[in-house]
């Protein structure tokens, strides 16, 4: 009992402990090694950290619910790019020309709708054909990326709208727009997963699909809703990011799926489904961004970030296995 509680506590709190260790390490190491005399835990620096976490973070929140459901989505990077193109291109369409700045909300809605539709297509294929989500989204990762390239070849799609840029760069209560969207997405998805029937059922399906079916839960629609949610969030991430930058390259968002999965796994969500927490994923996202910033702060090459994150990911997996009692039994077989 006591050891069970201890391991639960370690797993729940691990990511926040890790963030604390990072903060202490980089603050102390920064004093010795950093070239700038600014402290690492500077308020501006931390606010920027939240803002920079937003693009991957919003996607990782969606990836968490997909993985709790026992699925995976490799196509989010391509959905991200496609939604960005819809956003920037639709503002220049002649039918919107007379609307002035009213074209902005319409472009947002179109981009988000594109994300939902692409996600729904993934979910529908998984539901109706019964193909593993890994294969379905591996395929659509190629397919959606193909659509991105077909749209505008290898040229960047650009449209800078200053009203939009002002909105994206605004700060409210000290936090940037992107940060508010990240916090909002985290809260809404947390609410859905912990306070609604859909959330309960999604956990149940991921935990034991047979039992969920026997309990009368309709597996298909719940999976499809989750794929629509992650499509929406991937598009939201694009909308927030490209409102500010105003230009999208056709291979933007490549490898985002892998970064998002890394953040989710660091947060302690299992690939097998049935368990995981939105808040811990939020921690995982912060931990990765902190690591990037911290390594830069102490003067390490940016190249080492990849190396360190890869090794940490494997170490987390190993520690999780050691802490997990059920896992230990499997080791003996």
């Amino acid at each position, binding site marked *: 009992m006591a050891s069970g509680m201890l391991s639960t506590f370690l797993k729940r709190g691990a990511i926040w402990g890790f963030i604390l260790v990072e903060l202490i390490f980089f603050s102390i190491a920064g004093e010795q090694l950093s070239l700038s005399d600014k402290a690492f835990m500077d308020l501006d620096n931390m606010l920027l950290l939240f803002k920079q976490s937003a693009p991957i973070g919003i996607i990782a929140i969606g990836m968490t619910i997909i993985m709790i459901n026992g699925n995976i989505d490799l196509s989010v990077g391509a959905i991200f790019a496609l939604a960005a193109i819809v956003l920037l291109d639709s503002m220049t369409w002649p039918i919107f020309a007379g609307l002035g700045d009213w074209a902005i909300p319409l472009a947002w809605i179109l981009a988000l709708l594109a994300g939902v539709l692409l996600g729904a297509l993934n979910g529908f294929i998984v539901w109706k054909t019964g193909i593993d989500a890994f294969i379905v989204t591996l395929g659509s990762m190629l397919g959606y990326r193909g659509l991105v390239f077909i749209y505008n070849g290898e040229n960047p799609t650009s449209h800078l709208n200053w009203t939009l840029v002002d909105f994206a760069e605004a700060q409210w209560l000290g936090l940037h727009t992107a940060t508010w969207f990240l916090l909002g997405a985290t809260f809404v998805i947390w609410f859905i997963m912990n306070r609604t029937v859909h959330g309960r059922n999604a956990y149940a399906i991921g935990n034991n699909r047979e039992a969920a079916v026997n309990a009368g839960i309709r597996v298909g629609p719940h999976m499809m809703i989750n794929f629509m949610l992650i499509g929406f969030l991937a598009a939201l991430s694009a909308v927030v990011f490209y409102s500010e930058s105003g230009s999208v390259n056709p291979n933007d968002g490549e490898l985002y799926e892998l970064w998002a999965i890394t953040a989710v796994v660091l947060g302690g969500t299992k690939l097998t489904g049935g368990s995981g927490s939105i808040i811990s994923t939020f921690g995982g996202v912060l931990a990765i961004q902190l690591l990037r910033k911290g390594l830069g702060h102490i003067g390490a090459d940016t190249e080492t970030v990849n190396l360190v994150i890869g090794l940490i990911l494997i170490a987390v997996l*190993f520690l999780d296995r050691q802490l997990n009692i059920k896992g230990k039994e499997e080791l003996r*077989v």
Partner: protein
Amino acid sequence: MPKITKASLGRFLAKQGILIAFILFMVGFTLANERFLAPENVMGVIRSSAILGVMALGVTFVVISGNLDLSVGSMMSFSTIVVLDLHDKLGPTLAIPAMFAMTLCLGAIIGFLVGYLKLNSLIVTLGMLSAIHGLTLTYSGGKNMDIADKEGTWFSVFGQGELLGVPVPILLFVGLAAFLGIVLSKTPFGRKIYAVGGNGVAATFSGIRRPRVVLGCYLVSAFCVATAGLLQASRSLGSQNTVGQGLELEVLAAVILGGASLLGGSGTIFKTVIGVLILGFIQNGLLLVGLQFYAQYVVTWVIIILAVWLDIAAKRGKLLSPIA
């Protein structure tokens, strides 16, 4: 002669579906453009598929053993960069074995983590994807790698040479495929891979040392990746750090297209080669009929879904899944 029923037709389609699809594609493209089946075109397609193909051979081993390997792309970048760098420092004769040794070490690390520590292969190789990418960048200092004397080296023979009129990459691809095909289907090691992938617990109880088999599969994969890196380096004699980026998923697509199940226990080298060729010929055929390059991605997507759907629909005897 056995009677043809709906069920047996379904089974036949499922078993040979990918081959039939391949033949249909070839016929369709040939009708659309007569240059499609010209020897130089066919040779060109196989040659440009060789690097992806060699990597797919190794990944087939890993997938049959019931695991995944997402690190092959960044590992290929690593071996390409290493062999180019060592070429000028040690000379080609020493650089090639040194590069193979280093790549096999990476494969051994993955094999140890997945086989002996029993960690989830998807996450381990995802971590290694990132870690090896970092390793490559640290090794090269983020700079592109080039061979100083591009004219005076015999190193280019692997990627650009010809033997009896056949390009060397094709010979290497076909030779390696034949060798690994025999290993997989005719040796005890090969049978053990199918056993471990089909039912790991049963294989352990029948005395197969599962960790060792898994390690072996990742070593085969690393060897194939090193060969692909050699081909890439020798073809271009210079390279970026990200040359293999994204290849891991294309390789996996070829293996799945060939009919290997991600659950493990099924798949063959021959079918993987067909999968690789389908990807290559679709790309080429779509270009020849005048579609733009990127249309192949969309077509590949549709084909992967249809191929896998057909496969599992025939196995369960129903077109739509029983998911409520």
